[in-house]
């Protein structure tokens, strides 16, 4: 692998925090094939990105989940002991309303193996899920329910985690329409 200087590297000075107000999800079992991880990358940049697309099974598609602004976060946590370091990525978000659709989603998602694609505010995407591991629901970090005060808000905060050996950007497609039969 060819190494290079790790400089400031900000596109047009941009470096806004946070994630977009929408993330994309599907069931892990709906994925037919996964993008590939770098195996013999020529450059250090190639070592930080996946190649190819998430391809879903015929009739399956990804769906959107709305995120209240400034409640969404994609965190990369380093875990493990010496010689065994890896990462846990966290997607945290709040979806407002506490309506049937949201309750139905959380009822389904709480014990399901999931996949998420998250877009940050710099336009970079991250895939949570691979051929071995899925993203899973990890609880409500900022609470769920009606809120106590009238000035509060109803809804459900959610956290999803995905354990991975390495962290990559995702440069593939997000199919928001059912996959075709082969």
């Amino acid at each position, binding site marked *: 692998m060819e190494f290079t200087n790790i400089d400031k590297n900000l596109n047009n000075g941009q470096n806004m925090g946070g994630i977009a107000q929408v993330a*994309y999800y599907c069931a892990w079992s709906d994925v037919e094939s996964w993008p590939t991880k770098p195996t013999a990358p020529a450059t250090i940049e190639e070592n930080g990105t996946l190649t190819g*697309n998430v391809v879903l099974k015929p009739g399956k598609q990804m769906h959107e989940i709305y995120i209240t602004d400034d409640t969404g976060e994609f965190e990369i946590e380093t875990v493990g002991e010496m010689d065994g370091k890896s990462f846990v990525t966290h997607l945290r978000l709040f979806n407002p309303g506490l309506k049937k659709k949201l309750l139905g989603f959380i009822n389904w998602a709480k014990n399901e193996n999931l996949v998420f694609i998250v877009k940050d505010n710099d336009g970079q*995407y991250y895939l949570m899920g691979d051929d071995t591991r899925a993203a899973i629901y990890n609880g409500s970090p900022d609470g769920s329910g009606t809120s106590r005060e009238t000035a509060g808000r109803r809804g459900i905060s959610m956290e999803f985690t995905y354990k991975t050996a390495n962290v990559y950007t995702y440069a593939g*497609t*997000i199919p*928001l*329409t*059912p996959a*075709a039969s*082969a």
Partner: protein
Amino acid sequence: MVWQEYFQLEKLTPGRVIVQGYGEIDFSKEVSPELCLDICENTTGVLKITEKGMEKFYGLKKQPEPGTEKKRTYRKRG
């Protein structure tokens, strides 16, 4: 739709797809063939170019398979 004469979606039904670098594109509607060509050239696994597309954008006509081309027959005069 015109774009479908020149391109074919790969493993997707015509509808909404987020293609990175291009944003969300609704392939159930008319899409500029030039945009399709750009996507085809710069991404993988989204669009395949058809024979008609090869002819339109690259001027390449599919050659007949060897042995399948029509042979001219000549008649002997008189």
